[in-house]
């Protein structure tokens, strides 16, 4: 479903955020990216939907090259409209939620349906109601983001991404900005999404979630994939020294 090959990303002269990533994610697979801050997890996710433009390498989602026109000869960047259409197929959830503060929770969820999928407000709202119920916020439809807790905001953000019926969902440290007691409700929703067969890539520091939900755990450090495997392999018998040190520090 997602194929990443030879992906590198530089910011300016000195910062090498990604130093050659190869990663394939199967349909329905849940992959958790773990690793220290600055290891490139976010940049990898942001490259998959082209919010960060790769320095080199190829990303494919559902067989289609992301950001560039497929075909022979010189690479040609997609135009704004085609790029947008491609991004609509890739759901993304941000660390800081990024709900639109001038829209109610329900409006946040349905804006893409109205503006991108061109559904009528009534049709969009019907889907929006279902999704708000799914993330357990049926009673908060009219609330503005300002009046929601962090956990509620992130659940609205998940519903907003799901509304587009994406082929894959990317989660960029979705619980890192939350008070500890609110983390569980967000993870529960993500677990529900995973159980329905969604292809997911999740950058996270929640090792419990990774252990429970991930089909595969990928450990990144300094812009590279250092080690990957099933949760049992990664948490049970880590091979690389760096991964061992990382787990020692995080699993106190």
């Amino acid at each position, binding site marked *: 479903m997602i194929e990443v090959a030879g992906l590198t990303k530089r910011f300016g002269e000195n910062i090498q955020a990604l130093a050659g990533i190869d990663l394939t994610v199967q349909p329905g697979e849940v992959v958790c990216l773990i690793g220290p801050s600055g290891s490139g997890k976010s940049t990898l996710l942001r490259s998959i*939907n082209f*919010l960060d433009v790769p320095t080199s390498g190829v990303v494919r989602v559902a067989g289609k090259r992301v950001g560039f026109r497929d075909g022979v000869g010189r690479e040609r960047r997609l135009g*704004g*409209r085609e790029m*947008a*259409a*491609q*991004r*609509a*197929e*890739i*759901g*993304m959830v*941000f660390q*800081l939620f*990024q*709900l*639109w*503060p*001038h829209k*109610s929770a*329900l*409006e946040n969820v349905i*804006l*893409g349906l109205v*503006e*991108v999928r061109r559904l009528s*407000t*009534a*049709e*969009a*709202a*019907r889907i*929006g*109601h*279902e999704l708000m119920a799914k993330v357990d916020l049926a009673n908060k*439809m*009219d609330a*503005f*983001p*300002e*009046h929601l807790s962090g956990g509620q905001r992130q659940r609205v*953000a998940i519903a*907003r*991404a799901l*509304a*587009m019926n994406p082929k894959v969902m990317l989660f960029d440290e979705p619980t890192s900005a939350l008070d500890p007691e609110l983390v569980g409700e967000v993870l529960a929703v993500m677990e529900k999404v995973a159980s329905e067969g969604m292809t997911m890539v999740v950058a996270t520091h929640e090792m419990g979630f990774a252990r429970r939900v991930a089909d595969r755990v990928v450990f990144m450090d300094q812009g590279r994939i250092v080690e990957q495997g099933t949760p049992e392999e990664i948490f049970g018998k880590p091979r690389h020294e760096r991964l061992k040190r990382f787990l020692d520090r995080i699993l106190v």
Partner: protein
Amino acid sequence: MDIDFGMVIPYLPILFKAAGMTIVITVLSQAIGTVLGFFFALARLSDIAVLRGAVWTYVLIFRGTPMLLHLFYVYYAAPAVGITLEPFTAAIVAMSLSTTAYNCEILRAGLQAVPRGQIEAAQAVGMTWPRILRTIVIPQALRVIIVPYMTNFISHTKGSSLASVITVPELMLTAQMIYSSTYRAIEILTAAGAIYLILTSALTLAQLWLEKWLRYDERGLSSRRRRQLLLAASGNG
């Protein structure tokens, strides 16, 4: 000499008509300056260096020189290169050029105040740039823009009195003409001042109302919008 505000009354219709002219030149030039200023602000934020540089230079010049000079330039200097304009048209051109520079900077600041992540969230659901601008950026920028924008609008209203020097029959020129024939400067200037104050107070009130309206989370959804969104639920059940 006695001060007699009663003498103003017969001149009120003339003063009101002049105030009408003040409103027309102010609002018209501000409207033009808002539209141009918006596109200039987008140009300032574009990837095209030449465009950015051109607008930057424009703002440098027109914000950095007096509007009185712009009025003189358009009315007295332009004929030398074959452009002759009526006083009214000249005033609109000069005042628009001037207020465009301010509006450009005010609108740019507002657009830039919208966090990058807000735009990325819209990109992530597949919205194109014009839609993002319309549905995400502008509504949020308005909150930042409204105070400096209305401040400039009020300042521009008062600045419109400068058009008197190129013989536009607006409030200031009309007041001058009345007191130079009646020698009632105190009464007439006070009346003109009161009219200016009424005009600018209307803008101040408009600003208060807009600020309140833009506190969307306190205002909540309109009942019409709420019905629209809820109707779907009942259809679903």
